[in-house]
């Protein structure tokens, strides 16, 4: 899963998740490797029939919020999953995930603004802002991916309207943000041409996922800006 989720069970207090390294799927297990006790499933209300494609996220949210049950990770419980074979298949998969991920957020009924700025290089939380005083739920997990897009958009605007000083700012911003955004890919040992292709695929899937999540969340009257796809850490990292 792509979104790091500090479940806002009590938004008026400081969330300990902030002190932890951020990594994908920290709070939930994917359905392709999820085992459940029947009594636990009954206690938390079984799978939600309305939670298309995000039923695992929704179920794990409810387990996390339950006063009794907990979710446990066994490092040896490993399955291998076959990914999509084509770029189109990958993009539609990411689009599908994104489109339905807003539902579990909306379902929590929590309102407020929750901003978490994530460092894509080491997957840690850089800064945060939390307030429960807002009529709707706004969740944003900006990463370097968003900064790249914002500066690229600025550059486009500057070029259109001939604002050279704005173009300079945008270029400086891109010089700062692009190496950070590409940090994961730069670390990989691979031919340069393969890295370029990988960067393009990574960018397209990020666009598909983040746009889908934003649009999908709007359908549930919440604003969700998910984090972009990280390279996950070693499995033993907590």
């Amino acid at each position, binding site marked *: 899963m792509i979104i790091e*989720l*500090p479940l806002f*069970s009590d938004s008026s*207090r*400081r*969330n*300990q*998740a902030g002190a932890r390294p951020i990594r994908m799927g*920290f*709070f*939930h*297990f*994917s*359905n*392709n*490797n*999820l*085992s*459940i*006790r*029947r*009594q*636990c499933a009954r206690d938390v209300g079984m*799978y939600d*029939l309305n*939670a*298309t*494609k995000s*039923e695992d996220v929704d179920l*794990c949210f409810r387990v996390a919020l339950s*006063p*009794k*049950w*907990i*979710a*446990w*990770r*066994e490092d*040896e*419980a*490993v*399955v*291998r*999953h*076959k*990914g999509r*074979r*084509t770029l189109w*298949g990958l993009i539609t998969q990411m689009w599908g995930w994104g489109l339905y991920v807003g539902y579990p957020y909306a379902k929590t009924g929590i309102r407020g603004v929750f901003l978490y700025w994530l460092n894509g290089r080491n997957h840690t939380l850089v800064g945060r802002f939390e307030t429960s005083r807002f009529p709707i739920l706004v969740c944003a997990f900006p990463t370097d991916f968003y900064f790249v897009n914002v500066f690229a958009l600025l550059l486009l605007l500057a070029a259109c309207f001939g604002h050279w000083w704005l173009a300079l700012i945008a270029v400086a911003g891109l010089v700062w943000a692009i190496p950070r955004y590409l940090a*994961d890919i730069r670390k990989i040992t*691979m031919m340069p041409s393969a890295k370029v*292709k*990988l960067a393009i*695929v*990574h960018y397209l899937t990020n666009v598909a996922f983040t746009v889908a999540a934003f649009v999908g969340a709007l359908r549930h009257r919440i604003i969700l800006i998910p984090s972009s796809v*990280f*390279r*996950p*850490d070693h*499995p033993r990292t907590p």
Partner: protein
Amino acid sequence: MAPELDWRPIGGGRYSRVTWLLQAIVLLLGRTPLKSVFGRIYDLGMRRVVAAVASHPAVCCILGSGSYFENRATYGLSDVDLIIVLNEKVTRADASAREIAHLYEREQSIFKFLGRWPEKEANLIYLSDIAAGFPAPESFRIRYKQGKLVKLYGELPSGIVSGAITSSEVLGEINTLLRFSLVADPRHVEREIFWKRIFAKLIALTELIDLPEAAASMRMRLDLNFMREDDARVFFRRSDPNTMFALQLTLSRQIMHLIAAREGKQKIRQVRFESQQRRPELPANLIAPAFMRDLVDQQLIDIKSVAPVPIGFGPRMLYFAIGDPIPMLELHEATYEGILRLRKIIGKRPPTDLNALVSTDGFLFIISRQPTFVDLIPLDPLQFANVYAAAFGDSLDFEMPANVLAEQQAGATTMFHALANLYRTNDSKVAKLPHPCIYREDEGEVIENALRILRVQAACAPAWTLIQRTRDVFEYLRRKHPECEQFLNELERYQRNMYGDLSLGTTEANNIYHCLHQFMYQALTGAQTIAVDSPHAHLGITVGVITRNRAGDLAEMLESLTHQVRLPDEVLVVDNGSTDRTQEVLGQFRERLPIRCEFLERADIPAARNMVIESAANEIISFVDDDCITEPRWLAAVERGFLRAENIGVVGGWVHHQPAPHRSTVDNYYRTFHHTKS
């Protein structure tokens, strides 16, 4: 990725130039009529912070100590120690401490003199810990017994602290002061005012143990002349930390010598566990990491190997592995400078489990790489006489003052009982944390910790059995508790398997975690006969698969299920409207797997999953997708997960990417960004 390293500020906090300047301004203005204004600001700050913290329902009482509460405050420099006692309903796993921190920091952002929260956090007292049998922190006990605590809110329950100040408490305080000097911000340590505080506390300790003459002679020392001077003068002077720390060490030793001289000494003869041969000496280059050997080349340190011994006789300092020789770094330069250099060098290393003894000027410390800083733990020669005997004499015999020994033994017994309570509480139930997360535990660490605690228990009176190999801990326990032989054999095999050692064979003891807890809480309370459940237990598991027109993938998945080391009790496949040869594939596996098939015409995955949960023959349902391949130990791990505790509702693991037959950019993407996911 190593977290941001902060090797300086523990205990004293950061001491920046700005802090110094602010202190200097307040100190100078405090000598003018403005003093009364500062007094009011301090009073207001104290009232506000006490009111804020007391508003939290977990707070039972608040106590204060320090010069401010004794009406001899030097504004700008005064200690304002708050001791916050939390009621019995609150445990360390609760969110209360963070909520109180939030309340405190809100006030502290205005009244800076209150000090940072981490300093106060060390003074939090959990009555639940005390109820479980853990002793109250030493510094609290000693201040309480001195009558130096001022009640600011609530009532402290009676019976938490009793009796007179013990030698061990004084030794603990001396160690705390030594540690404080070594880990405080070097910019603070180079100020004479820092040392004035340290020596004042040291002299006060000497008076506490009824040694007024020794205290008076310390006061009269020429090199402590600054103790008689005004704070404002001392504040602006620098001092040499090397000289001052050497003096602190000398005076600390004098106090220890006086404590030892007051009581008779008791000789102790440790008995090496009989099954073992004497270990061959390992060369120093094998016991210390390479970067330390660079320091040897620079003639800054020598590395020696110390035979493995427990650190003292309490189950508190479990820093070193049972069987490995302990690396000892002998410093060649001044103690303070040498230790600071070591802390900096070790601090640049990744936060691995790096611990070593440091020997300097005849005194021993433990240096320990913690996740965000490098800690120093002083080991005084009275409480840790066994370590000194091993380090400097390689001897099994040593002497301890009789009173210190008696206190150590009483303390150890209390701690063993408290740990037993903890094991009992955690058996079959995982304490839920205040924030949402996925729970996991390093099993190797759990077993190793348990063995280290049991080894300390064996090292205590009356047997004084010194165990220096992990396998001997098992042998010792087998002889002591023959009724648990099966469990101990399985535990040993299980532990060795974790490190890739198959010499004792493999084991699938899936209930070992629960059995270990059972064993520990009985062993630590000194039970003569211990009863544990079988390390092998069985839970019925149904594997649930939802499939739709993926007959080829489904066949591969079912094939992988047949290779499980723990086979499923039922495989429940929900055919979500397939029109391909799915049924034919299922038919092929019916003889090898207990397959049952249900049909759900409409494509509705959540409904299909609910159908599996409700109609499964077993209580545990493991979902796997038809486009996955299970690793052979997958189901065994799932079963082990559920057996750990009754409140584990969901067990998951990792999803790795199955590489495609032909490499492509899309496959590279999955390998890079989805090689593991939940």
